Every structure is written in structure tokens, then in C-alpha cells.
């Protein structure tokens, strides 16, 4: 067993083992989770190092080869997403441990957070390495149940949102599974790299592709199937919002990309690509517009997720037009930079909302003493979301723009520019609110007024939470520097046809 194999086995099994430990011994859950989080980060780095050094590889689970058994494909893209999960997971763990949610504030035991959180992490890791369509379905279920549990943790209002999310995403799973059943019936295989050679572009293939796509679009909250996302992501605890918006939604897009550039490659005609791209355009514009209209900070960030994932959808029209490699690396860098910066935004927003005791954008002005670091993290993350150089967001959008220019697809270039302006507009609203002198006291809740006048200083708890947010925001900036040399690694993807 090589170091890479060992790292992947740790990545898949450690979160589950730690989750069980956290469930059986709740009093030690925080320690176990923090140690596991750090170990998982190290394992993800080892896996990435192995892929960068020796190239991508397959791991046949149980020693059984493809049509019979389940395969893991450990390649550059998978490792990049494993690293993203580890970064958001580690930062979220630190943030939640520092926040110290007290048992008295909730009707239920808040320590259930840890097993659910680690199970979600394990499900995501298993999803990113899996090359088997049915196994991916099981991991999607895993991720769904854990996400629903985590959203519902923050109380009554969130339970309604969690319920809607559960219904929407279960429907998505069933539709996806129908498509997978058709594929299995047609070619008697579920392995993605195998299917990339074997799946014919006939009626069965087309029906299966549309079913799988509808299921994943619903799970990825791609316009117009995004109705469940804003309230689910805005009402959850900050680390939960961070991982849902940064990683869980990205997982659906990741699968969509692997499916369309793998088994469904022959079906990716200019017409199909344009249709998917138009959904992305709708997401960018509609999500951006609604983000601009939101009054609450967390809802604004949630709508921004709908909008930003629209940029990734440009992969399909640009790949159909011939600029596959450039569009692929561009979309993946956008996905990674968005994951890190969006998670940073939510973690920072958690501190900011706690400080001002209000989530309304127009109540965020005034005294910022003690939470300067959170605003700094928010601003850095915003820079990456907008796409200012030298951040990851800039590099990803630049490559997408280059792909559009190379393939002569200028309407998509126009969309990129328009979407970037919209992003700048709604993020500027928040930053501008922060530097204002502060609203009149009538606009605040009575409880906030007292705290506001005193100018609450930063506590160690706040500091831990802000450092977690800042780490992620710096990661989003670092992606910009790391992406150009790592581009060949990112485009090592087993089963993807260029």
C-alpha cells in the first residue's frame, strides 16, 4: 500500500470513525473532532502530493475490478476537492469549537453537531473519490441526511427550511437513480471511466443523461431549481452554511462535470451545451439580482452561491465549442475559489452578526471594534468572489474568459463581465454598510443598543472564529497563485475525454 492509498483510506474512513466516537462519547467530541480535522487536512495534502508527483491512479475497493466491484479514482480534480473539503471542514471545526454553543440556549443537546458534521465530511470524501454511479448515489444520500440534520440543529425556523431541502434533494436523488438504473440496464456497468467508452448516444443514453442531469441540477441548486437553497443556507449555523454553500453544492457540480465530460461526452452537442449554459446564465443574473435585493447578510451570501455556481456552468457550452481543457481548469478554479471564499464569508458573517446582534445589512455599520479581522476576511473573500487579481476567483474567470475568446463564444464573455459587475455591486453594498458611521439607534433591537454603546471588545472566542474565517479567505487568495503551476494537475481526471 502506497502513501497515497493510505491517505485516501484515512480520508474516507477517519471521519466516520470519529463521528461514531463523537456519538458514543459526546463529552470528548470536540477533542476527537479537532484532532481528526487536522489529520484529515494532512491526509488530503499527502494525497494531492502523490497525484502531483506520480499521477492519478485507481483503487479497486475490495480488490474487485471495474464492472463487478467499486472503483475509486484519485486524480487531480478529486484531490483538489478533497483539499477544499478539508480546508472548510478544519476551519468550520475551529469556528464551531470556538463559538462554544451553550447547552442552555437550545432545546436539544448541541453536541450532536459533531457526529453529524463528521459524517457529512466522510460522505463528501467518499463522494469525491468514487467512480461508481451507484456508490455515488449512496454517498449523495449520506451527504443529504447529514446536511438536513445539521440545518435542523439551529431551531424551529430552520427545521422548516431543512424539511424543504430534504424533499427537494430526495426528489433529485430519485431522479438521478432512475437515470443510473437505465444506464445499468443498457450497458451493465456503473463505472464512470468504463462508461466513458461504452455508453452509446441513443435514446436510452439521452433519457439517462437528462434524468441524471435533472437530479444533479436540483441538488446543485442550479437556476431555476434553486428555490430551496436560500433559506436552508441562511438559517443554518455559520460552519454548516459554510460547508453547504462551499462544498456540498460544489459536489453536485463536480459530478455533473465528470458525467458530461465522461460518459455523456458524445451527447454534449453545442445545443445541449448551450442549454446548460443558459441555465448558468439564468443563475448568474437572477441569483445576482436577488442577492442585490436582500436585506439580510446571510441571505445575500446564500443568493450569491446561486449566482457564482452559474459561472461554473459555462464549462458546458465552452467545452461543446471546443475549448474543453481551458474551460475545465477555469470552472474548477472558480469552484475551488468560490468554495473557500464563500465559506470564509459565512464564517465571518457569523462573527459579524453575533457582534451586531442583527443580520440586517443596514444595521452593520457603526462600531466595529474587535471584529476588524472578520471584516478583513470578508473583504478578502469578496475580492475573490468578484474576481480581482491576484485571487483564485480572478484566475478562474480569466481562464473561462480566455476559453470564450478562443472558441469565439462572445455572448458568454459578456455574461462573465455582467455577472462580475453584479457580484461587485452586491458585495460593495455590504462593505459600504460596514464603513458607515452606523445607523440611528431606532433601527436596532433594544438588546443591541447597550452592547453597541459599550463597544464590545473581542473575546478569545471571537478571535478563534475570525482566524478560521481569515484562513479560508487567505486560501482563496492563495488559489490564485497556486492555480497556474497546478493547472496540469487539475486537468488530470480519469475518465474525462478532452
Amino acid at each position: 500500500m502506497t502513501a497515497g492509498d493510505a491517505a485516501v483510506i484515512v480520508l474516507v474512513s477517519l471521519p466516520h470513525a470519529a463521528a461514531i466516537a463523537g456519538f458514543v462519547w459526546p463529552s470528548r467530541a470536540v477533542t476527537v473532532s479537532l484532532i481528526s480535522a487536522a489529520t484529515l487536512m494532512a491526509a488530503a495534502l499527502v494525497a494531492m502530493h502523490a497525484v502531483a508527483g506520480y499521477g492519478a491512479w485507481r483503487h479497486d475497493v475490495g480488490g474487485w475490478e471495474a464492472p463487478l466491484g467499486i472503483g475509486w479514482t484519485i486524480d487531480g480534480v478529486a484531490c483538489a476537492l478533497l483539499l477544499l473539503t478539508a480546508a472548510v471542514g478544519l476551519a468550520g471545526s475551529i469556528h464551531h469549537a470556538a463559538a462554544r454553543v451553550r447547552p442552555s440556549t437550545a432545546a436539544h443537546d448541541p453536541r450532536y453537531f459533531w457526529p453529524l458534521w463528521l459524517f457529512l465530511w466522510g460522505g463528501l470524501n467518499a463522494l469525491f473519490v468514487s467512480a461508481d454511479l451507484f456508490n455515488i448515489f449512496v454517498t449523495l444520500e449520506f451527504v443529504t441526511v447529514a446536511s438536513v440534520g445539521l440545518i435542523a440543529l439551529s431551531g424551529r425556523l430552520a427545521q422548516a427550511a431543512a424539511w424543504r431541502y430534504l424533499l427537494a434533494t430526495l426528489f433529485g436523488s430519485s431522479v438521478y437513480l432512475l437515470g443510473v438504473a437505465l444506464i445499468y440496464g443498457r450497458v451493465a456497468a456503473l463505472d464512470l471511466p468504463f462508461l466513458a467508452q461504452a455508453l452509446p448516444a441513443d435514446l436510452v443514453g439521452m433519457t439517462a443523461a437528462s434524468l441524471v442531469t435533472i437530479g444533479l441540477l436540483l441538488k446543485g441548486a442550479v437556476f431555476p431549481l434553486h428555490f430551496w437553497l436560500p433559506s436552508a443556507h441562511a438559517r443554518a449555523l455559520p460552519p454548516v452554511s459554510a460547508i453547504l454553500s462551499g462544498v456540498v453544492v460544489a459536489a453536485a457540480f463536480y459530478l455533473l462535470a465528470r458525467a458530461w465530460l465522461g460518459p455523456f461526452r458524445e451527447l454534449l452537442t453545442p445545443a445541449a451545451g448551450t442549454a446548460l449554459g443558459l441555465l448558468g446564465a439564468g443563475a448568474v443574473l437572477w441569483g445576482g439580482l436577488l442577492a442585490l435585493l436582500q436585506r439580510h447578510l446571510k441571505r445575500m451570501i446564500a443568493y450569491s452561491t446561486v449566482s457564482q455556481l452559474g459561472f461554473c456552468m459555462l464549462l458546458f457550452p465552452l467545452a461543446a465549442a471546443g475549448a474543453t481543457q481551458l474551460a475545465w481548469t477555469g470552472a474548477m478554479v472558480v469552484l475551488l475559489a468560490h468554495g473557500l471564499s464563500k465559506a470564509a464569508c459565512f464564517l465571518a458573517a457569523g462573527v459579524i452578526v453575533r457582534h451586531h446582534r442583527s443580520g440586517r445589512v443596514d444595521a452593520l455599520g457603526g462600531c466595529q471594534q474587535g471584529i476588524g479581522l472578520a471584516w478583513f476576511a470578508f473583504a478578502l473573500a469578496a475580492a475573490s468572489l468578484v474576481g480581482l487579481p491576484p485571487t483564485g476567483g480572478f484566475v478562474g474567470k480569466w481562464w473561462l474568459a480566455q476559453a470564450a475568446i478562443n472558441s469565439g463564444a462572445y455572448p458568454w464573455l459578456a455574461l462573465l463581465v455582467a455577472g462580475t459587475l453584479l457580484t461587485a455591486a452586491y458585495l460593495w453594498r455590504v462593505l459600504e454598510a460596514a464603513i458607515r458611521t452606523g445607523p440611528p439607534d431606532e433601527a436596532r433591537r433594544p438588546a443591541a443598543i447597550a452592547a453597541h454603546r459599550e463597544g464590545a471588545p473581542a473575546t478569545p472566542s471571537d478571535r478563534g472564529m475570525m482566524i478560521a474565517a481569515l484562513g479560508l479567505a487567505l486560501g482563496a487568495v492563495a488559489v490564485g497563485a497556486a492555480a497556474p503551476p497546478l493547472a496540469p494537475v487539475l486537468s488530470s481526471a480519469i475518465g474525462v475525454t478532452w
Partner: protein
Amino acid sequence: MGLVGQVFDALLAIALVWLAWQATRAADLFRAVVSFIVFGLLMAVAWVRLEAPDIALAEAAIGAGATGALLLSALDRLAPRRGRSWARVWRADARTWVLWVPAVMALAGALTAAAWQLPAPGLGAVATGALEQSGVDHAVTAVLLNFRALDTLLEIGVLVLAAVAVWSMGPAPAASAPVMPSPTLPMLGRTLFPVFVLVAAYLLWRGSHAPGGAFPAGAVLGAGGILMLLAGAQPWIRSAEHGPWRAILSAGFAVMLFAAIVGALAGGAFFEYPAAIASHAILVLEVTAGMSIALLLFAVYLRGEPHPAADTDRQRC
């Protein structure tokens, strides 16, 4: 099969579609739930017709039994509400008729046309070919616990996760049993429970050489436990931090994860059992998985975190 079989299948298909419609669109919620339960039972008959008896058992135990019981007890907790009349169902949903029905019909049409073209090759031959090295004599068990053991691990994980998620939402409501006017139910429950245990044990034992195994056995045992709860039995699972139940509930998942890691250390791949001990390992996994599934179904049905410790002053049934 003959004409009789074909007529039977056609009637079965029509009844299934009608019941599905009733379950989703019925004006009265109670009627909808009953339609759903009958749908599950007929679906089990359909699986028997398709020569998949183990799926039929799981469908009857989970689809009709456990889910039906869950829906009925949820109905019990809903505030009494007047159902929609049929006239309103037809009138109010203009959008349903214009948008959703045509869209679903188009998708269903494409699905039917696509399914008609399927050659149905499957992987049966490949699985049977590799059976000798798998450590068991039955292809389904070999697939579930060896060839695709990772799926099974994650599926049991989903059950553990569901139990944790249900517990995280707050304490269980005091009485798990709905108020039942029938005095015969507790007696029936007590009489039937040993039969459930016996059937589950038989299914588990059968799994190594014939249809059966951990999933149907666990489902039957879990459904038996839920029946006992419905008959008024007090749940005995406790959520105490230092009590044994948290460990017992996670045991099936933990043992399987352990086996996978040991496989990786010994054979090189995750879940690669050494050939010499494969059959023993699978037997252990099968028994723990079956017990775990039964207990987890039961734990989910408690609808919340059970009382941390057994309190003696509460009235026992």
C-alpha cells in the same frame, strides 16, 4: 407464464398506478396513508412476480410495514384538519394540469420507450463467475458483503446517521404508541413478536446460500419491534452518555469499517478480505449488520432522543 399470469400482471400494474395516484392525491390524508400501505404490499407481490423474493420481503417490511406505521403515527400527531374535497383537488391546481402533468408524462414516455429498448444483460454472470473467490454461495450476499461491500457500509452508515439526526432534534414525545381503542393489539403484538424473531433469524441463516441475509432479516426484526411499540410497549433504548446503547447502535457500522481497514492493512485494498477468512468475516458482518439494521430502524422510529436513563417511577406497560 401463460395467459393467467399476464392478466394478473396487468391487473397488478393497473392497481399499483391507481394506488400511487390515491396515495398522492387523495382528499383525505388517512385514506392516502392506507393507499400507500396497500401500495407497498402489492409492490411486494410485484417483486415476487419478478422472482426477487428478498426484495419483496424488504419491501413488505419497510415499504408497507415500518413506513406505514411511521406515517400513521405522524398522522396521529397532526392537528385534525378537514381534507380537501375531490372537487377542490381537480379545480384548484390549474398549474398542475398545464405544467406538471405534461412534463411528467413526457418524461415517463421517454422512460418507457427507453426501458423498452433495454437488452437486460446485467452483471449476473460476472458475479456468479467470481462467486468461488467470494467466500459465500449466494450471489446477492456476495455482492452486498464482498463485491460491493462499500455500498453496504455506507447504507448502514446512513441508518446510523438518520438515528443521530432524529435524536438531535430533541427529546422523544412521551408516548410512542398512539391511543388505541383495541385491547387485542398488545396481546397480538406479544404473540407475534417471537415469530418475527424466528423469521429474522431464519432469513439471516439462509443468506449464505439462498435469498435472504442481513437487510431483509433486519427489516423484519425492526418491523416486529415497531409493532411492539404500536401495541403499547415501552421502548427500552436509552440515550445515556455512559450507557451501552449508543455503542450498540453504532456497532454494525463500526465492525464493518474495522473489517474494511483490516482488509486494507492485510490485502492492500479497502475491504479486501484475505481469502482464507472471507467466509467467516462475512458471517460476522452479516450478523452484526442484521442486528444493527433492526435496532436502527427501531431507534429512528422513536421520533426523538429517548430518555437518557431508565426511570423507575414511570408506569410500565
